[in-house]
Structure formats: C-alpha cells, structure tokens
C-alpha cells in the first residue's frame, strides 16, 4: 500500500503532477474501452462507425461541458436532461404557433433555457437549499410542463412538423447538418461539442472566472471572504447549462423536425456520469472539462460498441454504473493525494 506512494514521492514534480491530473483515469479508461471493442467487435474500427461513435459522444458531450463546470463549481443540475426537451419544444411551438419563421422560435428557446438556468441559480442563492433539491424541483416541473403544454397545444405528445417553414433549412444547417470528410461523416453536434469544449476548458483554466469556479466549489466561504461573488458565479454556471441545452434541443428539433415531449428525462444522470468519469469531484472544487469529453467519448464508444459486438444492450447501463463507481473512487483517491501534506 505504501510502496506506490514512496515511488511517486521520488519522481520529479512534473511527473507527479501528471499523475495527479483529474483526467488521467478517464484517459486510461477511454483507451481500455477502445481496445476492448476494437478486439471484440470487428465493425468498431470502420470509419463509418467512428462517425457514429463521435455523434453519440457529442450529444452527451455538449451537455457534459457545462455540467462538469457546474460540478467543479460545487453544484448539480438534475433538470439538465429535460430542459433539452423544453428547448426543442419551445422552439418548435413558438415557431408553429406565432410565426412561420424558425429563427424566432430558436431565439425564444434560447431566452427560455437561459431563464431556467437563471432561475435555478437564483433559487440556489436565495434559499441556500442544496442544488439537488432545487433542481429536482425544476426537473419535475419541467417534466410536467413539457407534457402538459404540448398536449394542450397540439393534442398529442409530439409537436407538429415545422419542416416547411421559412428558415428551417438554415437552422438545420447550423444545428443538424453533416459533412463527410474522407468517408467519415461528421455531424454538426461534433463541431458544437468541440467548440464548447475549447471555450469551456479555456475559461476554466485561463480566466478569472475559471479561478472563481474552482474556488466556489472548493470552499465557498473562503471564496466569499476574499471577494469572489459566489452566487453570481454559480448562476452563470447554470446559464451555461441552459446554453448547452439550447444547442442540443435545437439539434433534436432540426434533425427530426418534430419533438417527443416525454424525452430527455434520465439523461441528466448520464451527463453527471460523464463529468465524474472525466475526473470531476462530486463535492466540487476539482475536475476538468477535457475529462468530461473523455467521459462522453467512453459513453459513445460503449453504447455503440456493445451493438457492434452484438452483446445484449441491456448490459450497457450496468457498465455505465460500474464505470461511475470506479471513477468516483479514483477521484476521491486523487483528491486525497492532492490534499495530503508534503511529508
């Protein structure tokens, strides 16, 4: 038990820092999952499969970026799954009911998701309740509202098609197009994902606001005492979740042109799993955005790899749960390493 510690102590600082990086565990896990499926599932290594895996990863990864930032900031958002559906529904219904231009719905949808994010942040700051409770409340409310409003307006559980409206093609181009590069089909969500990843990671590691994210998650009282606006920081993180939900919601709408109002619920847990696998500490103050991408990639590889390997897909959730537990244990271990005294 003490041997590895001794070894690590003797290594140079750069290597020691590498070993304490939050993403390290998820990188090893991603490589392992890749190797396993490359060996057992022949179609896994085809270029077309890579496109499919990337797409699956991107639909999780777009949300995993803001969710991991929020988790580093010390909070959860259980409404992150259904708010994606809310975003799609709002966009579709506003366009259908009030105008015949899809861009209007898209913009109203953005305002709506940001307002929901702001509400979560404001409630948290105001009530001092745990975010688990606050966002469980918004989760339930949105689940009910998604179904209730859709049924009241369209009479069914899905929205009407908006495919013939003005602006549909340009919206589809922005949110749901695909390009084929040398046999590899890349969906628009992949670009959004990479963009959010780059911005999120840069903000976290290179800006003042990123410093505040670590601080409010690590010790909110200490952060407040040196002048960090704790409540405002958290609210901005919730706005980030709202933005991600907007992007993903528009993608769902413009790739299928109708929306099922019952979708989305349950995905919030997958986003959280991706963030934790990526090295985010559940208690906050530690983690990485790049890691959340690896978490999303593991999700994409495993969900599609199981199908290519012709395994029973029922085991997918089991696999995900096991990964989560392993990752959480590893993170706790890395945290203890990071905190422990010098000698």
């Amino acid at each position, binding site marked *: 038990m003490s041997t590895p510690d001794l070894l690590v102590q003797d290594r140079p*600082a750069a290597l020691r*820092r590498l070993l304490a990086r939050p993403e390290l565990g998820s990188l090893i896990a991603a490589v392992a999952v890749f190797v396993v499926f490359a060996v057992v599932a022949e179609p896994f290594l085809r270029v077309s499969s890579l496109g499919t895996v990337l797409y699956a990863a991107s639909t999780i990864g777009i949300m995993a970026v803001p969710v991991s930032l929020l988790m580093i900031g010390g909070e959860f958002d259980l409404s992150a799954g259904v708010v994606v559906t809310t975003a799609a529904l709002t966009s579709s219904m506003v366009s259908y009911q009030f105008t015949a231009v899809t861009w209007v719905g898209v913009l109203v949808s953005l305002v709506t998701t940001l307002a929901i994010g702001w509400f979560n942040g404001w409630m948290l700051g105001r009530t001092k309740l745990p975010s688990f409770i606050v966002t469980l409340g918004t989760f339930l409310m949105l689940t009910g509202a998604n179904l209730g409003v859709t049924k009241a307006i369209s009479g069914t559980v899905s929205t009407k098609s908006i495919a013939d409206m003005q602006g549909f093609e340009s919206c589809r181009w922005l949110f749901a197009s695909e390009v084929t590069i040398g046999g590899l089909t890349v969906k628009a969500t992949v670009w959004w994902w990479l963009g959010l990843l780059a911005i999120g990671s840069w903000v976290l590691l*290179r*800006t*003042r606001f*990123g*410093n*505040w994210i*670590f*601080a409010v998650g*690590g*010790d909110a*009282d*200490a*952060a*407040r*005492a*040196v*002048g*960090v*606006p704790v409540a405002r920081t958290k609210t901005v993180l919730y706005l980030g979740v709202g933005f991600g939900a907007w992007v993903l919601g528009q993608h769902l709408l413009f790739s299928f042109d109708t929306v099922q109002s019952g979708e989305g619920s349950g995905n919030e847990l997958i986003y959280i799993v991706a963030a934790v696998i990526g090295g985010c*500490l559940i208690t906050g*103050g*530690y983690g990485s955005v790049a890691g959340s991408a690896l978490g999303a990639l593991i999700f994409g590889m495993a969900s599609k790899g199981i199908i290519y390997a012709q395994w029973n897909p029922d085991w997918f959730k089991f696999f995900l749960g096991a990964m989560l537990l392993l990752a959480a244990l590893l993170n706790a271990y890395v*945290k203890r390493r*990071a*905190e*422990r*005294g*010098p000698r």
Partner: protein
Amino acid sequence: MSSELLALKGVGKTYGTVRALQDVSLTLRSGEISCVLGDNGAGKSTLIKIIAGLHQHDEGSYTIGGEEVRFGSPREALDRGIATVYQDLAVVPLMPVWRNFFLGSEQGMRRWGGLRLDADAMRATTREALAKMGIDLHDVDRPIGTLSGGQRQCVAIARAVHFGAEVLILDEPTAALGVKQSGVVLKYVTAARDAGLGVVLITHNPHHAYLVGDHFTLLKRGRMAGSHPRAEISLEQLTTEMAGGSDLAELSHELARPSDSRNSSGSSGSSDSRNSSDSRDSREERPQP
C-alpha cells in the same frame, strides 16, 4: 501624519440569541498597530468580521474616514482597501498556491483586455511574495492543502499584504506558527505599519501584542474590558488585565519560568505562548470565583 482610517463606536452584534459583541469601540489610525486581545469566544473574530464586511453590526456606528459605512460583502471592504486574514477562512485547499494567492484579485493580461489570466506573472509574484516571508516554495502549482498550517497562514498573510492598500486585519496570525514564522509575521506587521498602513492584530498572546502594538483593546465576553495606548500600560499590566485580576497569582506562577528564559534569549516568544495558552485553556475549565 497619523490620520484616522476607521472607527467603530458602540458596536454590537447578536447571532440569533447569542450576544457576541456589545458596545465596543475602536479607532485605527494610519501607521498604527491596534491589538485586540481576549479569551476564546470573547468576540474578537466577530469584531473583525464586521470590519471586513463578512458580517454587519446591529448597533453602533462604523465609519471609514468619517463616513458611515455598512458593507454588504467582503468585496466592498476590499475595495475600500481593507484586507483581512481570517482565522478560519483562509484558503481553498484543493487549488494551487498561486491561484489561491490571487483569488478575488486575479491579474489579467492587457493584451487580452484583462480576460486571460497572466499565469506566469501570477506564479512569479506568488513565489516572490512567499520568498519575502521566508517560505521558499518552488512549486507554486501544488494544491495549497499540501502546505503546512503555518505555511498556509503565511500565504494568506502575504496575500493580504500584497493586495491590502490601507488597512490590514490579522486574526490570530501567529497561533499556528512556529517561532521563526511568528517572528517573520510580526516583522511583516511592523513593516506594514512603517509603510503607513493601519493594522488590527488579533491575538491571544500578550507578549506578541506588546512586541508590536501601539494600542491595546481588551475584550471580555463581548464587552470592552479595557482600551489603552502603549504609553499607559506595561506588559505586566496587560497580561494581568487579560488574565483577570483574580487569576493573576496562578498565571504569574505559570509564566515564571518561560519569562526568565526569554530575558536571556530574545525571541523565543512563540513556544512560550503555546505553553501559556494551553494552561489558560485548562484553567478555563475551573469555576470562576
């Protein structure tokens, strides 16, 4: 030269039903070290949290340069040049040393409109500021939680000195420190005073207080038990007042040996203070006459 920086008059504060402070007054001038002394729970931390904007007073007045203030957050106090080192809220353990050092006062790169952190400059500044305090920390990327308690305290003090414009507040800065670091901190405190800052120094230790203080305020169960300029009080009187008259005999007995050895060896203040504060804690268990 010594203009008034801040003044508290008749300040009181209750936490729910606990009366933590009552009718406390304190004036701080530039170039002055004002010491606040008192036993555990006397209300010292509460007093400085009011000055620092972490809590608000319920009674009395708080003025800065003659203007009445009531801070809603520590940020407002910091913006008025009041920097604080808290006893219990010093640092965020998992964050690297340099990020902690600049937390709340991050330095941006001008080229990026201040948006991008100037991480290299921040690291270098941190290293320099710590070196000045006698801490040679090469790897400022270490999580600050891996430093010893005293080193962490020094980072917090170095940070407050670095960013503090006019008023420096220190809540028991030497409590967790060894002899050498205590000496360094006290030197820092006097250097800050000589640079024209006003310093509020909170301590359990009358010896440390008397080494540097210009004014002494004693708190007892939330009330002022004395307020003296240095000229009016000797170390013996200060110790006596702090202990409370009836416990004097016992205390002087307990302090007898350490104070003899101090006369010969200059600065062994800290280890002595450990002894005396330990014995005070045990004494508190006994019923008061």
